[in-house]
């Protein structure tokens, strides 16, 4: 077993020595790790070492064969630019060498081979069980013992799983796993922190149910293992415990997508939570959670849950039963349901049907006009936006000829400082912005006059040329992915007249668009990067298309997500005092041009007064009649028989 594919030669093979089964060392049922391996203890003194470290010495963490810095330099000199991991013995390029220490003190140390073979078996088995995936076969391709140091070769994929086991307990001792030639000190020896990490990971593994994709974090205070670590004895450790566990959880997966797919449900029941402060990191670690159980805690009011407002966009079921909030704020469901636009169930009671959710997402169709500030005339602005992005994604030369004439101008600026959506797995690459930076016209940075002028593109040909130099794109569909867009249009007087008949100009539009696109690989056409953008157009009448671009200004930045466009986020900076009443009911209403929030609020109050409906229903009624008061009244009259009793303010 030891030294598969090379390494020590004299290893006595065969399962002859099933002498003593190591005692249970593994938390999830790996009882009876049989010791069936060969012999190598302290034997393979191959790479120029005089002897192994004597058994039982205290040198477990001292890395006897770690190469000194000067020796490294010496070796590098002779081997060219081989990376460190290749300098000791040549491992195939695709393999990673891991050094395992600390095992010689294990309960299996008295085995003929010092426990090495059973250690290897355990490593393979343990690394193959992974949160969120059923089977995975980690194979140690080559191993070699040198004193108290076991070196193994694995694929880079398997190495991640093994490195995560650094600090794990095996046969009564904590083992250290580190990459040969990896960063010095990183993960060396079983520090207290590593032990805690390993312990937390054990807890997570034990509490995870793969079939249900369910992570049961209920009753953590009663968890024997956590109690043993005195996790909750001091306030200082108690407050750090949960974030630490979330960090371990995140590190258990290779990608955020893998993590999100593995865990759909979490229970935090029976944790004595007064609010969610201590567990708030859950919303960062599992932003796509669908089911959350908070029952049997001590949550008294909605403000205790406030940190999770606007989080968990995908939440479908929330359980808050057996919390004091049920008595203290019995009307809390009406308030909390709007926090989670995809919530279907609250405390096992349906709050929205699938049809309602589908209908709600259709509100913006067929065109993402999310703003009261979309002034259009005969669909000109809308049609322009549709045609423009379709053309920009498929045939930019044709687009330039269609909308851009000799006087049209285009320029773009690159914003490298904008934050990235924390939910994406994308990271900044070295040449991240190479395709943009050369012609970016950020006047804050570029003061040289010729550069400024060169980067302002005027006329069909110049626009077509710079369009062709910008990366290929695919914008989200305006109809089916409306929530990724934010589009505003304003009537714009004084737009230059293409025919020169009106010196003071004609009416056009200013259109401001915020959104995102996939950047496509030039050769394959595959999406490779997500970007966010802002684009401002001034368009006026004229040209063969009937509409011509006067100005086109593009701003490109890291992908920042579409959360800012969610209705509930728009109020982030809105005037709290004037619109408070109406906003407490739900997200800000979508108002037609000419109806301000103040007017809308008056309308709601008036209609509620006149009909006896609650403010919420009055608002709903007005929303459905596009804020036409007469029609709202008429809608009430024709529907009042079918309205539920809860639609009316109870009197007396």
């Amino acid at each position, binding site marked *: 077993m030891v030294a598969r594919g090379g390494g020590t030669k004299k290893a006595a093979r065969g399962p002859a020595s099933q002498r003593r089964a190591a005692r249970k060392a593994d938390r999830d049922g790996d009882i009876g790790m049989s010791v069936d391996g060969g012999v190598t203890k302290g034997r393979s003194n191959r790479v120029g070492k005089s002897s192994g470290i004597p058994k039982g010495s205290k040198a477990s963490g001292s890395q006897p064969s770690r190469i000194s810095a000067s020796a490294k330099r010496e070796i590098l000199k002779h081997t060219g630019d081989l990376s460190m991991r290749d300098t000791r013995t040549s491992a195939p390029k695709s393999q990673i060498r891991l050094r395992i220490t600390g095992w010689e003190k294990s309960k299996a140390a008295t085995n003929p081979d010092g426990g090495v073979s059973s250690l290897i078996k355990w490593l393979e088995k343990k690394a193959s069980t992974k949160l969120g995936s059923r089977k995975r076969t980690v194979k140690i391709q080559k191993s070699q013992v040198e004193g108290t140091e076991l070196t193994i070769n694995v694929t880079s994929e398997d190495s991640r799983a093994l490195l995560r086991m650094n600090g794990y307990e095996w046969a009564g001792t904590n083992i250290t796993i580190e990459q040969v030639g990896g960063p010095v000190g990183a993960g060396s020896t079983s520090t207290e922190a590593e032990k805690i990490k390993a312990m937390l990971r054990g807890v997570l593994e034990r509490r995870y149910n793969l079939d249900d994709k369910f992570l049961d974090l209920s009753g953590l205070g009663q968890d024997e293992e956590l109690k043993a670590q005195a996790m909750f004895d001091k306030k200082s450790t108690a407050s750090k415990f949960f974030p630490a566990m979330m960090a371990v959880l995140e590190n258990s997966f290779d990608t955020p997508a893998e993590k999100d797919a593995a865990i759909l449900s979490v229970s935090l029941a029976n944790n004595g939570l007064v609010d969610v402060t201590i567990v708030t990191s859950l919303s960062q670690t599992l932003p796509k959670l669908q089911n959350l159980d908070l029952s049997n805690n001590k949550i008294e009011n909605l403000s205790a849950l406030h940190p999770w407002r606007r989080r968990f966009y995908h939440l479908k079921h929330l359980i808050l039963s057996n919390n004091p909030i049920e008595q203290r704020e019995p009307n809390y469901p009406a308030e909390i349901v709007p926090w989670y636009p995809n919530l279907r169930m609250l405390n096992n009671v349906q709050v929205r049907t699938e049809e309602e959710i589908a209908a709600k997402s259709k509100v913006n169709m067929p065109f993402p006009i*999310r703003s009261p500030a979309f002034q259009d005339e005969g669909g000109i602005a809308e049609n322009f936006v549709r045609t423009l992005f379709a053309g920009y994604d498929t045939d930019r030369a044709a687009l330039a000829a269609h909308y851009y004439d000799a006087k049209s101008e285009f*320029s773009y*600026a690159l*914003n490298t400082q904008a934050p990235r959506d924390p939910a994406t797995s994308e990271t900044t690459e070295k040449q991240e912005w190479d395709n943009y930076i050369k012609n970016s016209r950020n006047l804050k940075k570029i003061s040289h006059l010729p550069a400024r002028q060169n980067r302002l593109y005027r006329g069909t040909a110049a626009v077509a040329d710079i369009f062709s130099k910008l990366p290929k794109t695919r914008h989200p569909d305006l109809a089916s992915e409306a929530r990724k867009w934010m589009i*505003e249009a304003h009537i714009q007087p004084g737009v230059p007249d293409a025919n020169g008949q009106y010196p003071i100009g004609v009416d056009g539009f*200013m259109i401001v668009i915020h959104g995102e696109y996939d950047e496509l690989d030039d050769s394959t056409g595959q999406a490779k990067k997500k970007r966010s953008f802002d684009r401002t157009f001034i368009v006026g009448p004229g040209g063969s298309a009937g509409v011509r671009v006067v100005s086109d200004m593009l701003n490109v930045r890291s992908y920042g997500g579409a959360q800012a466009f969610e209705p509930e986020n*728009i109020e*982030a*900076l809105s005037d709290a005092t004037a619109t408070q009443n109406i906003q407490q009911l739900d997200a800000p209403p979508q108002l037609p041009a000419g109806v301000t929030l103040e007017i809308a609020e008056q309308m709601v109050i008036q209609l509620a007064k006149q009909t006896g409906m609650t403010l919420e229903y009055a608002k709903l009624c007005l929303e459905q009649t596009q804020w036409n008061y007469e029609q709202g009244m008429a809608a009430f009259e024709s529907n009042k028989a079918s309205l539920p009793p809860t639609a009316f303010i109870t009197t007396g």
Partner: protein
Amino acid sequence: MSDFEAVAKQFVEYYYKTFDTDRTALAPLYADNSMLTFEAAPVQGATGIVQKLLDLPFKQVQHQVATLDAQPSSPETGGIIVVVSGALLVEEEKRPMSYCQTFQLMPRDGSYYVFNDVFRLVYPAA
């Protein structure tokens, strides 16, 4: 015809400096036909606009401009379109919010005023 860029730069510098120190002093930059669209809420007229800006739920604010670009939107009328993107730091909020703001400047009495002002947060507050 390149001084529109200088105008844009000066304007942006002055506008945010004034915004961050004393919002009431922004009134002279707007006119009665000016339109502010702040996070989808439209307000018209200098008085209303300044009131809207004063009513924003923060006292301390700092704009950090990351990009600034300008184009002459209308050579006939001398208008300038200015697009700014950057970060907004509000009071104790440590994490900045990203915003994008488009100004349409129009000449008036030898200077310029804001004809259209469209402000939008493009990255959530929390």
